[in-house]
């Protein structure tokens, strides 16, 4: 399990330590861009722009940083808010709703047919999750945010995160029930070699 001493990093950035800032940038830049891209119809140029501006802001106000939990959740929240602002500006809120409804199929590049099929099935199953439930599950599974970080990001209780995560697993299992015994089992044997 990764372990960075985030409290120390936070303090170092407050003190203006540039090398720590670089380390944090290198660690979170790429995942944050992928996260932002979800709000920009997969447009990575725009996503990179948004994330860079968030880092510029982080550096500009490093001395007065008011971070309650972790740098990671601060950055995700900053990017999340910047994305929502951008959407508001463009008055194309429906794009975000579309994202929440899960219209992302076009962005996938498939390696081969069987994993393509698995992906399609998973995507379909995820699409059937309620929007909030799906968002929470993706933040945990894809972005590897801690429960507490997700709760802070979405302004919900940790209890809600727990409930929704359990629900996501339960629903996904039901959706994939026929796949679980044969296909997934086979897939994972293959992946391990």
């Amino acid at each position, binding site marked *: 399990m990764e372990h960075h001493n985030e409290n120390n990093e936070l303090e170092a950035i407050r003190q203006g*330590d540039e090398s720590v800032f670089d380390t944090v*940038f*290198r660690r979170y830049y790429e995942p944050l861009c992928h996260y932002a891209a979800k709000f920009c119809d997969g447009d990575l140029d725009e996503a990179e722009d948004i994330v860079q501006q968030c880092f*510029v802001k982080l550096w*500009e106000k490093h001395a007065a940083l008011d971070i309650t939990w972790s740098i990671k959740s601060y950055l995700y929240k900053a990017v999340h808010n910047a994305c929502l602002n951008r959407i508001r500006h463009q008055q194309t809120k429906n794009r975000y709703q579309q994202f929440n409804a899960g219209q992302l199929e076009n962005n996938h590049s498939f390696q081969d047919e069987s994993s393509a099929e698995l992906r399609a099935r998973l995507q379909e199953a995820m699409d059937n999750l309620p929007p909030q439930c799906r968002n929470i599950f993706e933040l945990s599974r894809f972005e590897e945010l801690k429960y507490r970080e997700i709760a802070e990001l979405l302004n919900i209780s940790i209890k809600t995160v727990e409930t929704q*995560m359990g*629900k996501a697993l339960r629903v996904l299992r039901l959706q994939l029930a026929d796949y679980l015994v044969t296909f997934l089992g086979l*897939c994972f044997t293959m992946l391990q070699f």
Partner: protein
Amino acid sequence: MKEGYEHIEEIIAKHLAGETDAEEASMLLAWKSESDENRQYFEQLQQVWDAAAQAKPQASRPIDTEAALKKLKTQIYTQTGATPRGRTISMGFWMRAAAALIVVAGAFFLLRPKARPLEIAANTESVLTDTLNDGSVVTLNRNSGLTVASAFNKKERRMKLRGEAYFEVTSNPERPFVVEVQELEIKVVGTAFNVDNTSNPDEVIVTVTHGKVLVHDQNQQIMLTAGEQAVYNRITHTLSRYSGAQNPNTLAYKNRVFQFDATPLGKVVKQLNTVYGVHIKLQNPVLENCPLTATYNNLALNRVLDLIATSFSLQIDHQPDGTIVIIGAGCGE
């Protein structure tokens, strides 16, 4: 089921996301071992979790983090230097950019904080394992802390310990690994050892599992080899070697391996309370002396309690406040 959980999936999800605490982990283990059905259900959810990683949207092109960082730095530097005041001499853009760069770079250099020592601390709830930047691994027991010198790994690898910790030290004969605890110093090159200043605040107990360790205060020193123990008494300032049979459960907080050899149940309960962070009570004082002979290899607490209950025909009662009471009239048969 634990209070506040409607569905077992919530605990399984927490487990898969690495969010369970010790109590939830042992509860899940117990649930899994209840039936084959439970175990299979758990495995299916685990498969779903693993497979879900495949559904992560893939980027249309790779992201160049280094290029982005460069671009960002340029922006930060030019923005900071972009507000010249009271200047009448006009400089070309590149001159200004270069001046700004020098000013800002100088400021970074001057304002760079002195390296501060690194603090690692384990809370009341759990044991913490961390890797130091020389690759050595330290396991801190609950409520213990380690302060690593800012010059760590320059000439030597020096740190201050409070509480109890187990060190697995990567070998580096040129940079001795030095642990300070109270007025005692423990110096090693590459080895594994445990330091305990928790069990008795007046004593520091050093246990060596591999290699050689030098333990000293200002006046005396002892070289310990694997299997040996040194006990330092802070009141009498005596340092003594102990090579007899050691408490086999010294490292139980780390690996949850217990060996009991006709150990009185009162003592057993004390050790379980420390390692699992729980509150187990014996209802009847007679039970204190029941002799327990058993080996438990990293079992869930509930399993350990069941085994103890079976060997002395006792009952286990989980109280609403979390206390676990062991009930029985005597040591069975």
